[in-house]
């Protein structure tokens, strides 16, 4: 039972990361379209007070995996080594970009740190897609260790997943800006959101059709009886959210688009869970194989049950403090 609870908690931490740092990274990715540094300042300032907390969910995901599923941690990291290293390096540049952009003395230096912020955000998102795709594809394991080669993970599928995550985060970023900005910037964000949503839906369809082909077990889960009872609502809900998204966007709702973009992520994530369950590292390692001993899982669970609600509460408070529109006049720096 403990491994099941913990699988749920780790899944929650990673989902929280994807939803929260997703729009942070998306804002960075959208630097590609927003070239004026004044607009970029506003974009960065919408996330500057909260990004650090958002990224902490990634540390909880990684640290939590190390704590309660050490085998999965010890297998996934070496198997996806280049992608993980690329993600970490990218997050280094993204993370310092927040402060360094405002500290650069010359326009040239500022442009360079903007590029670091944009490139870091994009590469981090792409690498996270690679890791996701590589995990879904399956990892070769022998004697509790990764037994494959350097580039086993690099396939058309993982690259597609990488692109999908970049597009998805950019969509979240655009929707976040619709909510938190005003004027021309908000309007342009609406236009980005429109195009990105189309691309995102197309990518969801392609990845969803491709995934069952990776592993016969995934296909049986999705199309066999009784799995289909669980799986069929997922595409229906995706379509429903799409309708709501367009409705919200055309009526200029402020936060409906963000809500819908995140709902797509939640649905895709649920679909992912349906495919994988009860595997942690496909094809062979289940959550019970990967689990740390009960003494470890129970010890950390006590803290998690008490602390995660408190964390959510003060994270909510921090968002509340920095609520409202962010405009060019607001100097956090």
């Amino acid at each position, binding site marked *: 039972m403990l491994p099941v609870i913990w699988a749920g908690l780790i899944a929650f931490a990673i989902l929280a990361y994807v939803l929260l740092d997703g729009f942070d990274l998306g804002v960075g990715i959208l630097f590609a379209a927003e070239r004026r540094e004044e607009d970029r300042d506003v974009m960065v300032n919408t996330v500057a007070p909260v990004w650090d907390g958002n990224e902490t969910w990634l540390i909880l995901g990684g640290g939590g995996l190390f704590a309660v599923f050490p085998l999965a941690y010890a297998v996934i990291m070496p198997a996806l080594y280049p992608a993980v290293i690329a993600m970490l390096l990218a*997050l280094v540049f993204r993370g310092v970009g927040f402060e360094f952009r405002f500290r650069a003395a010359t326009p040239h230096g500022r442009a360079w740190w903007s590029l670091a912020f944009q490139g870091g955000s994009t590469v981090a998102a792409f690498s996270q897609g690679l890791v996701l795709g590589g995990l879904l594809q399956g990892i070769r394991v022998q004697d509790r260790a990764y037994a494959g080669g350097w580039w086993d993970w690099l396939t058309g599928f993982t690259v597609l997943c990488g692109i999908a995550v970049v597009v998805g985060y950019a969509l979240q970023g655009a929707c976040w800006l619709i909510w938190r900005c005003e004027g021309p910037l908000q309007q342009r964000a609406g236009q980005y959101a429109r195009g990105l949503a189309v691309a995102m839906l197309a990518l969801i369809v392609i990845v969803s059709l491709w995934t069952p082909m990776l592993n016969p077990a995934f296909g049986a889960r999705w199309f066999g009886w009784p799995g289909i009872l669980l799986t069929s609502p997922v595409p229906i809900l995706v379509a429903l959210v799409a309708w709501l998204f367009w409705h919200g966007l055309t009526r200029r709702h402020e936060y409906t688009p963000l809500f819908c973009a995140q709902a797509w992520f939640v649905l895709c994530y649920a679909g992912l869970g349906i495919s994988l369950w009860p595997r942690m590292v496909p094809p062979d390692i289940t959550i019970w194989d990967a689990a740390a001993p009960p003494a470890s899982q129970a010890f950390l669970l006590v803290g998690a049950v008490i602390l995660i609600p408190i964390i959510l509460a003060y994270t909510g408070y921090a968002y509340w403090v920095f609520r409202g529109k962010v405009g060019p006049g607001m100097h*956090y720096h």
Partner: protein
Amino acid sequence: MPAADAVFLARAQFAFTVGFHIVLPAFTIGLASYLAVLEAVWLATARQVYSDVFQYWLRVFAVVFGMGVVSGLVMSYEFGTNWARFADKTGPILGPLLGYEVMTAFFLEAGFLGIMLFGRERVGRLVHFAATMLVAIGTLISAFWILAANSWMQTPQGYSLTEDGRFLPADWWQVIFNPSFPYRLVHMVIASYLTVAFVVGAVGAYHLRRDAQNQAARLMFSMAMWMAVVVAPIQLLVGDQHGLNTLQHQPAKIAALEGDWESEPGTPLILFGMPNMEQERTDWAVAIPHLGALVLTHTWDGSIKGLKEFPPEDRPYSPVVFWAFRIMVGLGLLMAVVGVWAAWLRVRGRLYASPWLRRTVLAMAPSGFVALLAGWTVTEVGRQPFTVYGLLRTADSASPIGAPGVGASLTGFVVAYAIVFGAGLLFVLRLLRRPPLAGEGGPERGVPVRSAGITPAPALQDSP
């Protein structure tokens, strides 16, 4: 098993990434506490100069904290990428400790950092102070867990071993409060405070040289020198106790840092020399007879186990440990001397007037960082050739990743860190070159704030 050169590269990568990382949280631990003190005094006394110094260092804090976060994220994944077998074997014990660090410290710091940095106009004064306090407490909680984990690797207890060599927790209290933990925690937190004291002192000294009447610079210099005279001697005592604890639990480390090969009664204290691992002796040794016995056993004829008592494959590489130890102790003594000197000048009313004290303190700006890195070198290289002391060898801890992979990622980190931390250092130095001014940043007192968060009690905003 990965080849020896892959293990060496993985060690180099860990040393490099943790070396860069550790100075940043050490600095933010000390600086967060300093900021909390400044804000508390400002709230209590309403003296503007405390607010000025607070604002001045808050900008530095923002830059340094960001760098600490990103370099720390790297560490939390490096156990998996380069040390996967270590992760699989020790995950059940070390993982929960790090998990608690994330849940009790990282989220707390991150959650309130935004309010601390950007929220002065959005929340009431007391709420802002609470945020600063919570960030400072968060840094200390973080130190608690990470040093518990590190100390467990040095002095493991409270575990059971499976047949395939994995560590399982048996008693969490024993795991966390392992024998070296209390000493290491106190030693490290004090080191952080001293590091910050000498940076703050140096910045004060720098600006006093240009304007001896700058109130904020005087405050920095004075507070730093109080810290030096009170805390540096305490650190020497704590270090001594930590050493005795190490002698009890990791005698090979003590032999390596003393450069002692023999186990004769009346151990000498080798001041300088060069330990020679092949010839099993310390060349060009300048030694004081019996002093080692006095320091380590507090007796005249006591002895410690020399390195020859340990099989060659179990000996830490003494030259590095020996010299790193001397650098750390030398700088610690120097800090205490400067503290006493400053106190003496203060009594005579010449604290701000002595150019030699100012120059010395300015030159010692990086002394805390150097001493800290030297100290970590002593304790980590001294733990070799094990990751979990006496139980798990470093060579059996690495990932099944070949040398080209580890080498490539190491190159990536070296290049990225050179750019990022080089620029960060530049930005910090640029911030520090600007003199602290009266009325530094922040809203004026008595001016209504724009939005008071969820504690809109008007009384809060006007009370000191």
